[in-house]
């Protein structure tokens, strides 16, 4: 039996039967080696390894393999191994990732729990593409990584070649070629000669361990795999139990110092204070910065005298009433108010339109319509400025207050702009500057303002053009027969006081 001095070292010996006593001559020693497993040859360069592999292939060997620290170009062809089927596996698994990603989104968002996101269809392919792309990549990578392991029979924790010290260098700087004894062509002498002739710097035999116990995977590795697999089921089991049972125990707190912080939350109890409350309130005689708001007119829209308090009719003296403020009011109105009240204030914003489109019925207040002949309606026109301001600040009916979103000055600017809208909607000839009026055709005597009077000309429908001055002459210049004696409609209410 050939004996290689390397074989003596770092070999796991059969426990209790090895040479752990100096007088091992007295115990019949086990043979160092079992049956011949194969022959291994070392080459100096990857190029020589490729050439040796080619010679091995040409000599008809099939049970052989090459070992190198890095992938060697051309070795597959030299060894005569057919191309891997890994790409096909990756393609198939990756494609099932695409389908799975789309199926997942269809199931979750279009079938099991329909959910409207940004008004898109519940199942829309463009929105699904990024997710499907990611699942494709994920599953392709898994298929590539684990498929490579499986096809390469990895992880291989034990192999007869590991007995050779030389083999340990295969991850460092050794280029090895091993031919196994089970190959039909194998003949120890001839095979060794072939490998040596191919330029090997060393050829050595590899023997199996004589102890059958060492021909298989060590027991502790098997135990570790079984144990870790079992452990992996523990979280699943806990989750399963939690879903299928009831418990009165409190939650498990993994980070108690985060869950129970030494602080009080608003409106909770605190024993150490006399009143037992965590809230400490304001200290009497003080006021927080920016909370004074002592000017009732500016901050609350209330005109207060010594005996009386009413909504203010004018604007606070701090504001300069000019076109700039109107423009500012328009800007804020279009942002905060128009979604419901509409850009023209008639209450036909995008929100009520959408409610109508989806079969509902809801209209916000019409801010510009005047009261009818009996004085009914037209509340926003009749409201004093201060009350309008208060409505913007604190809301009314279903409308929320906007004090947190809009500053005080901007709320007054909106009041001013609403007045401008009301004035424009209810405009009469008197509102048009005389020099511009001259350029217009003569209006009919009772200039029909766009009031909703029943006997008004058909032009005065519910949707008059804001510039009603131009519509009125048109109907006046071509009076329909029989409408010549249109009754004078009620004079529009003066919108602004």
């Amino acid at each position, binding site marked *: 039996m050939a004996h290689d001095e390397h074989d003596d070292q770092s070999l796991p010996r059969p426990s209790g039967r090895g040479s752990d006593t100096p007088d091992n001559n007295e115990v019949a020693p086990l043979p160092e080696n079992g049956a011949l497993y194969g022959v291994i040859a070392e080459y100096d360069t990857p*190029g020589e390894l490729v050439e040796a592999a080619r010679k091995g292939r040409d000599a008809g060997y099939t049970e052989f393999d090459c070992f190198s620290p890095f992938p060697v170009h051309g070795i597959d062809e030299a060894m005569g191994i057919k191309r891997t089927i890994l*790409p096909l596996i990756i393609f198939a698994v990756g494609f099932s990732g695409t389908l799975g990603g789309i199926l997942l989104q269809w199931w979750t968002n279009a079938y099991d729990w329909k959910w409207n996101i940004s008004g898109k269809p519940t199942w829309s392919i463009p929105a699904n593409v990024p997710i499907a792309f990611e699942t494709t990549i994920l599953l392709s990578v898994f298929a590539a990584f684990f498929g490579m392991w499986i096809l390469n029979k990895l992880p291989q924790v034990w192999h007869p070649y590991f007995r050779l010290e030389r083999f340990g260098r295969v991850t460092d700087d050794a280029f090895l070629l091993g031919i196994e004894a089970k190959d039909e062509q194998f003949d120890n002498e001839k095979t060794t000669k072939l490998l040596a002739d191919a330029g090997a710097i060393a050829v050595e035999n590899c023997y199996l361990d004589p102890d059958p116990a060492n021909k298989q995977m060590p027991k502790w590795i098997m135990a570790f795999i079984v144990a870790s697999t079992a452990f992996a089921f523990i979280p699943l089991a806990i989750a399963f139990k939690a879903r299928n049972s009831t418990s009165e125990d409190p939650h498990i707190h993994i980070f108690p110092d985060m869950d129970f912080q030494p602080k009080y939350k608003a409106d909770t109890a605190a024993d150490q204070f006399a009143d037992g409350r965590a809230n400490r309130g304001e200290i009497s005689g003080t006021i927080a910065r920016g909370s004074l708001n002592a000017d009732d007119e500016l901050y609350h829209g209330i005109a207060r005298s010594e005996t009386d308090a009413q909504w203010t009719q004018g604007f606070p003296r701090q504001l300069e009433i000019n076109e700039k403020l109107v423009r500012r009011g328009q800007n804020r109105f279009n942002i905060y108010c128009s979604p419901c009240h509409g850009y023209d204030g008639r209450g036909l914003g995008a929100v009520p339109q959408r409610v109508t489109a989806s079969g509902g019925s809801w209209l916000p207040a019409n801010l510009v319509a005047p009261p009818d002949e009996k004085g009914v309606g037209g509340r926003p026109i009749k409201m004093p400025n201060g009350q309008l301001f208060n409505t913007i600040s604190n809301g009314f009916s279903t409308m929320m207050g906007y004090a947190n979103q809009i500053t005080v000055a901007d709320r007054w600017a909106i009041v001013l702009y609403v007045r401008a809208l009301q004035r424009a909607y209810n405009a009469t000839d008197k509102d048009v500057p005389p020099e511009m009026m001259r350029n217009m055709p003569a209006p009919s005597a009772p200039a029909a303002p766009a009031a909703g009077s029943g006997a008004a000309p058909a032009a005065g429908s519910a949707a008059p053009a804001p510039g009603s001055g131009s519509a009125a002459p048109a109907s006046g210049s071509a009076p329909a027969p029989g409408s010549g004696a249109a009754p004078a409609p009620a004079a529009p209410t003066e919108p602004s006081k």
Partner: protein
Amino acid sequence: MSALTKTLHPDEKVKAGKLGGSMFKAGMGIAVVFMAISIVFGAMAGDNFKRFLHAYVIGWAYIFSICVGAMFLVILHHLARGRWATAVRRVAEAMTMALPMVFVAGLGFIIPILAGYTDLYYWAHPDAHNHELNHHLAHKLGWLSPALFAVRYVIYGVVLTAIARYFYKTSKQQDESGDPKLSENMRVVSGPAIIVYALVVCMAAFDILMSFAPKWYSTIYGVNFWGSACVGGFAALGLLVLGIQRSGRLVHSVTADHYHDIGKWMFAFTFFWAYTAFSQFMLQWYGNMPEETHWYKYRLFGEWQWVSIAMLVGFWAFPFVFLISRWTKRIVPALVFFSVWQLVFHWLDLYWNVMPSYDWTIVQHGEQVINAGPLMGNTAYHHVGFSPVDVTVWIALVGLLVAGIGRNLKGNLIPVKDPTLGLSLAHENL
């Protein structure tokens, strides 16, 4: 000994000889004949050459993009200390050296704009300054003015030509001296060069292609154009190298492994194009803002609908599933088929980007298109259709590109003294 490095095969024909000259003559012949036909078509159309010039810009962008794609390989090869491409790098350099000629050809639409031609770009038309119609175009008209546009065009031309010349000349110089220091120099230059290159290509795409729809917004547009350009560049490189091999040159140096890598790049950019095109689409589709979606609305409905579907299937899905395979890239007839296929669809991509804007009703309406009711039945939109001049101008300009490349195919077709040549000749894919 291993196959890690090789020397040039002793029988290899590395000299261009008469090849470049005959390419120049053939290309010029095609260019002259087809340009004459196109001008006749253009004059017959009686639309003040509007259609002709639209097709001219598309054709120009096509040949420009192919040079740009080849330039990416040249710069990246130095930047990443590439090995495999050394054997085909000289051919790519010759492609980039067609850029001066391409930029001269571009004067065909720059000069009319400077001379006051207003029917090509909407922003050059007096209507664009109509505040009533186009108030949200006003802030862009400073940038999109004929004079500034022409100045930028010249800058793009000078910068890209300088980059192309530097790498071509230095590489040629190394053919003589074999000085490895020159490789080092090119590597140092390649870093800044790729930044400048990226900016110039993106800006050129914004200016020359995207400004056909001046009311539209997209910041990824330049990147998307570049992706498409690189598909065209690598497809053209593969075909050109193959043609050179058919003429008996470089037969031993360029192997299936080089074609494999060219094919990989073509595959990668096919996907990259789809990725950026979809990114551009999806964000605008999701955001659903009229000033963005109008561009897609008139491409996804009406007469452009089928072109859009053809782009999705033809420029991405079909080549993707075949080019993903190793064999498609290594078997020459398959690679040739897909190179030609992608070169055609690259042109269709540019056509699809530009030609819908031929109808100015759409350009002018901008986001109002969204509110204009069902587009298909709307008579406000003209029929853009197809015109033979679209193709004849394209062929003429491709002829010019062939001539421009041929003019630079002289001397060695391979960087014979490049230190990495041996590694490239022995290149093998795993």
